């Protein structure tokens, strides 16, 4: 089966499904129930949106960066789609380079992706964003596990 292209509508839909489902029981193993209680509490009350940008998407949508737009509400994902430049309106706009997106999909740790500033908040209140950072980091790790075809971008 062919993997959906990175930053394609099909990939965004698959990301939305994975985020709505959340971490599996296997993925929850090894971390304290207290940590997951916090994750679940944040998820249940989260009403913010993320525009996760790829700053240098090769042969991307139009020109300039593209964004994976994720809207949260009612404890789940209410929308997940690709937005082009100028359409990134969200509570938090974040940016990451293409190479770092590839590394995330290759298994690079989500916590270090944040800590080493590979992904950064470009618009939005940092202190408010960080109140949900464990939730965000776990979600970033889940996004990295969604299969994506990076080679397809070169031939678009």
């Amino acid at each position, binding site marked *: 089966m062919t993997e959906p292209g990175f930053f394609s509508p099909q990939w965004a839909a698959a990301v939305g499904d994975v985020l709505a489902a959340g971490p599996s029981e296997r993925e929850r193993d090894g971390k304290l129930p207290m940590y997951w209680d916090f994750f679940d509490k944040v998820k249940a009350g989260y009403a913010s949106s993320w525009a996760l940008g790829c700053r240098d998407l090769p042969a991307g949508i139009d020109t300039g960066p593209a964004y994976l737009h994720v809207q949260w509400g009612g404890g789940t994902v209410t929308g997940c789609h690709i937005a082009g430049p100028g359409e990134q309106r969200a509570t938090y706009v974040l940016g990451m380079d293409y190479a770092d997106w590839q590394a995330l999909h290759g298994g690079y740790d989500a*916590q270090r992706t944040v800590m080493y500033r590979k992904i950064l908040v470009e618009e939005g209140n940092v202190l408010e964003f960080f109140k949900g950072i464990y939730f965000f980091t776990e979600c970033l790790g889940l996004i990295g596990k969604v299969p994506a075809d990076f080679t397809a971008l070169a031939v678009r």
Partner: protein
Amino acid sequence: MTERKSPTAVLREGPRALSDEQVREIEEADLKGVLAVDIDDVIEYVHKDLKSLPDFTTLYRKYLKQRWDVYDLDFTQDKIDWTERMTEAERHSFLAIASGFHHGERQVEIELPVFMIGASEEEKLHIAAQIEDEARHTVFFDRFYREVVGLQGDDIMDILDASFPWVAETFVGPFGLLAYQADEVRRNPYDERARVRYGTTYFLWIEGVLALSVMKVTLSYARWRGFLPAYYTGFTATCRDESRHVQGGMKYLQDAVRKDPSMVNEIHETLRTILTLAGVASREVVYEPLGWTQDEVRMLFNQQLRRKLNDVGISLPPDLLAMVGSVQPVLAGG
């Protein structure tokens, strides 16, 4: 290490005055002499000048006298202690705590330069010295993990990669926040509100609370058991360095609030985020092999935070006071 006090011997004693001789011993000890300095005294020394904070030039002059050569340490006995004398439970607990510092030192080293841009000329001297301190501390942990723990790698990042599995998922809370606040300062280096938020995370929480707690727990263990003499020497010297960092950081925050009392809101808002995150743990760390309990480490956290705030004259609103009581004892530092 002239006596074998229990790790928590002075935990419940509260603030105590150091004699002039004790202060002189701490301030003037060379690297070899640091082995004889009691870590409880150095932790007390950190707080000694918080009520009347020294100026940045004084702190810089202290740095020039107190800097030490990390390559002078000999970890031969530490390796023997680690492999032949420490139990598996002790090694496991030690790494669960020290690894947060291994990574924390790297983080505070690389996130500090942007703060220098908007600082006064005198503070720039102090920050430049602090960056060199943090680089030296990074090398100290790199050497400890290579030469004692036995991790292998071609460069510093290889060793960081190898110790990362011991770092808790909640590490991203304070250190990710610092990275993002450093980026805010990078974009607006003269934004005093952004600088105060950054300073609260870096100087008050990471250095003033987390780091001093790691130092106290691991060093009081090493003193109690008579183990890891090079670790004790280097990390106690690191703690003496931290006294300048904490004092400089608290002076910065105190001056900022005196100049503009509304800055206390930035401190409170930053602590509100930090304490929200600090109320969660992702892994259970067993402290008993190092002579501590979870409750004692939590008490240590609370003491460290309250002493900084009290000494600098910053009070907390009721909701933050309640959050302080829920802090989980997850140790990291830098």
